[in-house]
């Protein structure tokens, strides 16, 4: 028994140091008018920062924007990732090449690609407007992508999907390769076509992996920060603030670390609650017995 705890100890110590301690500390800070300079007294205000958030229209807008980003990027990444994974699971020529190609955006730097996408979405001379207006005349005018709330959120979402789809693809591909070949062959012998085989054999087999990918993507979606910060800076007029950019502004521009911590703590609670709901939803009927 003691030996088991001893084996757990190093991992738990690391978890406590880099996860538990910061969370506890953030919660503590969120209860104060926090003075950032060491040695200065901080005023205890209880849940004052939380009440402030509930009455702050930008907090709610940030929550909706974070939710929109999550709703835009998660299903798209799952569907596109799965489609590419299925294609790459088949015996295509140059499979390794395509696998690398689709995975490449995942390993690029967020900062570099965020700035790159900002240029792609520039109103005059950006690649997207060139394609939609000048080349194909679909829109008939240049869209002010980053100057309006929803178009800017879509632009940030497109970056999120482009950068993230390779990750879900590689996990799905690994899972698909683990589906027993005999099952697929048996289904084929029974006359099942490709779609039926995928729906009835492959998909149920990779269900736990779909759950894993979904939960992680939802967490990541709510934690969107770098792309928004670099592409729109939360603007114009706070229209594209997400929870983390609003938190960052409060803490690092306005030095209100108490309020910033309250926002981040509320985000933690939201993500935690969503993860619990998803775990329950993805549980198989047989798991509950």
């Amino acid at each position, binding site marked *: 028994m003691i030996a088991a705890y001893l084996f757990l100890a190093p991992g738990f110590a690391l978890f406590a140091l880099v996860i538990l301690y910061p969370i506890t500390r953030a919660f503590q800070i969120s209860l104060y008018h926090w003075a950032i300079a060491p040695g200065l007294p901080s005023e205890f205000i209880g849940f004052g920062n939380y009440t402030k958030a509930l009455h702050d229209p930008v907090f709610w807008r940030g929550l909706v924007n974070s939710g929109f980003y999550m709703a835009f990027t998660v299903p798209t990444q799952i569907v596109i990732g799965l489609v590419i994974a299925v294609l790459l699971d088949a015996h295509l020529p140059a499979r390794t090449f395509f696998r690398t190609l689709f995975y490449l955006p995942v390993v690029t730097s967020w900062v570099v690609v965020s700035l790159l996408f900002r240029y792609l979405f520039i109103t005059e001379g950006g690649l997207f407007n060139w394609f939609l207006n000048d080349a194909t005349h679909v829109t008939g005018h240049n869209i002010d992508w980053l100057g309006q709330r929803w178009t800017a959120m879509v632009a940030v979402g497109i970056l999120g999907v482009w950068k993230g789809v390779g990750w879900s693809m590689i996990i799905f591909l690994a899972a698909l390769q683990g589906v027993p070949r005999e099952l697929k062959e048996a289904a084929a012998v029974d006359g099942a076509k490709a779609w039926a085989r995928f729906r009835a054999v492959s998909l149920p087999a990779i269900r736990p992996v779909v759950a894993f990918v979904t939960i992680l993507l939802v967490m990541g979606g709510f934690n969107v920060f770098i792309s928004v910060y670099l592409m729109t800076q939360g603007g114009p*007029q706070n229209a594209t603030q997400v929870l983390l950019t609003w938190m960052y502004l409060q803490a690092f521009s306005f030095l209100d670390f108490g309020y910033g911590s309250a926002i981040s703590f509320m985000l933690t609670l939201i993500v935690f609650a969503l993860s619990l709901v998803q775990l329950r939803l993805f549980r198989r009927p047989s798991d509950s017995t």
Partner: protein
Amino acid sequence: MRLSRMLVVFVLGTIVAVTAATAGARINGAQKTTTITFWNAYSSDGPEVKRLDKVIIPQFQKTHPGIVVKDVPIPYDSLHQKLVTGIAGGQLPDLVRSDIIWVPELANLGVLEPLDKTLPDFKKLAATTFAGPLATNYWKGHYYGLPLDTNTRTWNYSTTALAAAGLSGPPKTFAELKTDAAIAKAKGVYLYAEGGTSGWNLLPWIWSAGGSLTNSTYTKASGYLNSPKSVAGIQMLVDLYKAGEMPNIILGGTGGLGTYDGITQGKYVSTLDGPWMFAILGGTVKLAGTTIPAGPGGSVSVVGGEDIVMTKTSKNKAAAAEFTRFMLSPWAQNQMARAGQMTVLKNLTKQLVKIHPYYSVYLKQIATARPRTPTPKWPQIDQVLQTEIPKAFKGDETVQQALDSAAKQIDALL
């Protein structure tokens, strides 16, 4: 045989190493080195960082043996965050070149050394500098720094784009601005581009219109920011914007064509900016500068610039004070003026125009320029301006409504 040769090599090597180490220790003992760290946001786009690293610091180290200056240039947009992190972690440098608008905030946090108490020759040093920039170091009874460079915004224009717009000269008054903007629009260019609605962007128009942001003691915005004169200043820009005579980058979106790019491409004629614009764009565009078009309140611009401040946590205050004095010396100020930094020394202004002719308009403009509200809450005030005023440009509210709302929020901050 082989072993004994290795032994000889080892012994000789040890002797050499020990001798070198002892000699090194003797040198260090004779000349103890003090290192001071200097955080700043000198621009590496222009010649500023190069001038500091290659000319000024080497000269200081030559004349002050035993002091090493570690220059840490940080991009302007990151410096504030870096300072905040440094404060929280107790890891600040000895000296900071701080934007003038951060000094009250930093002083209020208790991390700055009151230089009027620390430097015995503070009064003498302060007396050599302009009163306006010096005042930006004052917070609750003490001076927490000394001015390092000053600047203001003037009406800077591309002479090529001006001619292309069919205009013979820059606008001198609000009335000329309105007429010229329409002429330029007919030629397919924007006469004036402004990159946002912060205080830095719009205060020149409010002041030139005869309005103000707050009362003179900086305690109230209602009745000032939303006064008829302030409203008229913003209304003029809103009218230009609605007539399609100003680009939409004033709304603060990041997707538009920036002022520098627009001027370089000949799509914008003018913007308001500091002397660094000449250092950065001078090589690519034919630039000229003049004072901001005058309104009922005159031609009034906004003061910018940086102060040099010493941190309380500095362990090398004497050396840091020496470098501060050096940076305020006529020689160092002259050197930085060559890199586009306007001097704060009263006696050096005559030389400025010899260094770069474009300084003459800045010297004229700065005579009437005013500072932004000196308060630790300035970042929040600026955020209010950037959130509320665009509503008037977009037509969601009238200028009066937008400024009423902004004034009310700023009252709460003051």
